[in-house]
């Protein structure tokens, strides 16, 4: 009883002290993070602080001064190197796209916030959105159902939230969206797009690099989105060999071209 009384007394005293010192400031603490409404940090490459935080090569202008915007979102894997941003970036630039890039691991380990991510889309007309790598497991009862923004399955958004945040900021009406990750066809819920491509179940990470590169090279060769997708559909042999093989599905304008 004595210990319980001591606990209560000391607890109450500490709480009052902290409340007294924090009261004048506390109202502002509940405001939305300022970063959400700010311009993307990579819009200020002259800032030494920003250069330390964000990779300076995060935006590449399209060749020929084209104004179309492409966005690449990469979620790395610790054990499988499927990185191929450089290949896709080069193709998109050659087709006149300004390429914006988000490396979820890099940003996550350099203290970026999810609001930095969403802010990049402010006012853009996005024509290509390519997300490759792991999608997020957010609810234990579901298998895979969201987007990883900062390389942590717990720092992501469900498809509904993700797309509503993006489409409040950017125009996706003419966009090709290609999500090369697990169960990604389901992740179109809430998305606005011209053409959407995703997988119908979990996909083995060892398949991502080859399929990603092949897909973009086909588009580069002038093939339609459907033809490019068909070139990466799993063969019978691939389905036999891999634990996690997936078929691709496309919704919208299957004749979309770069």
């Amino acid at each position, binding site marked *: 009883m004595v210990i319980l009384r001591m606990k209560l007394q000391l607890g109450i005293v500490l709480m009052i002290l902290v409340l007294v010192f924090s009261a004048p400031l506390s109202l502002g603490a509940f405001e939305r993070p*300022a970063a959400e409404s700010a311009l993307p940090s990579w819009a200020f490459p002259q800032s030494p602080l920003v250069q330390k935080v964000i990779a300076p090569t995060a935006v590449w202008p399209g060749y020929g001064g084209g104004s179309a915007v492409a966005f690449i979102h990469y979620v790395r894997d610790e054990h499988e190197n499927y990185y191929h941003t450089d290949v896709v970036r080069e193709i998109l630039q050659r087709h006149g796209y300004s390429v914006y890039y988000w490396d979820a691991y890099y940003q996550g380990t350099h203290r970026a916030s999810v609001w930095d991510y969403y802010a990049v889309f402010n006012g853009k007309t996005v024509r290509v959105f390519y997300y490759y790598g792991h999608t997020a497991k957010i609810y234990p009862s579901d298998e895979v159902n969201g987007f990883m923004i900062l390389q942590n399955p717990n720092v992501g958004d469900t498809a509904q939230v993700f797309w509503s945040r993006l489409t409040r900021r950017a125009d996706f009406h003419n966009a090709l969206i290609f999500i090369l990750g697990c169960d990604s066809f389901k992740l179109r819920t809430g998305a606005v797009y011209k053409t959407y491509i995703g997988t119908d179940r979990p996909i083995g990470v060892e398949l991502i690099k080859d399929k990603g590169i092949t897909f973009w090279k086909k588009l580069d060769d002038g093939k339609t989105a459907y033809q490019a997708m068909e070139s990466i559909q799993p063969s019978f042999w691939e389905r036999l060999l891999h*634990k996690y*093989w997936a078929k691709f599905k496309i919704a919208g304008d299957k004749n979309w071209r770069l």
Partner: protein
Amino acid sequence: MKRVAFVALSLFLVLGAVVMSDTFWKEKEHPDRTISATANGDLLVFSAERLDNTGYSVEVLACSLRDQEVTFSAEVPEWIDSKVAFYILYPNADYLGLRWEGIREQVLNVSRDLGLHLGKVEFLKPALGRVRHSAGRFTYSAKLKAGQCTVLSFKGAFKEMPKKVYLRNGKVLELPSASLSGGEEWLLTLTVPDGFNAWNASIMVPKRLGRSEEFLRRCTEYRENLISLVGKRVTTMEELAQMDVPEEPQPPEDYCAELRANGSDVYSTRLLGNSCLYSDGSYYGFDYSGEGSQVISARFASTGCKPAIWVTFTGKLNVPLKQVNENGHGRSVFGVFGNISVYNGDGNGPLMPDVEGFFVLDLVVQSG
């Protein structure tokens, strides 16, 4: 200013919680029973299984909290083993790789709660040459340092999918079933039975359907020949990559039925699921998800030869663990389909491993 306010608020909450909590006033108690059971034998174990039309896959990842020898044992039940054409050993954890960040965090948290302080958690590739296989049982022993994790991962590729599916406890798993009824106007009924914790299903109605006896013969022969090419009971991806695989036959452009439905326009593979029936790649799609039993129906119209619908289903499964004690040492036998266990040199292993199982089915439904 906002940062100061945030810090002050955090301090308030943390100090309040600490002062009111018992642990502030008491000596640190022994770790609770849940942690002891999770990390029995100073091991943490995670497993994922998947059974689909093409095979049975197993991934077992074990992380050791101290330097010790760790043994994996995975017994493939006879009803699966008898349908397997060959087994493939993998050097990585695929599904568990997806969960790696969370797993690493969990290992660090548990080790801290146990008073152990691992500097880091790292993945060690398994030495596939040391994986043993005999009478449907895979065993693998590895010396792990504190903080090291490794995996036993394999797939049994089916020559044909088993007709009946059993859970580890011997119970028959009731499978989703589908049927067609009608004439020109058709009704597809998909029945999802109880037993799946969570599931999703998609129904794909082909806009044009093709049935060619010639293609069916070529497609079936191709698949049988491909399977017999391997010629080894246990192999690796490295060995399979060396093989010269002939090109898959492509379906013709002739169609015998046209179908219509109110689903969304979706395009996918020309072959319907795992069958040798084909479409032109255009479908009407319907998506569903749920928990527990449910009956789903979709209407469509069809003219021409008898229709066929492609249904894909993914369900999540759970089967209670079985605890075994030998000479005073305990561990769990777990797994949804197979009998899996992981233990150290004393015979101790986790009593509460993290277990996930998935049943994935491509169903092609035809009338009659």
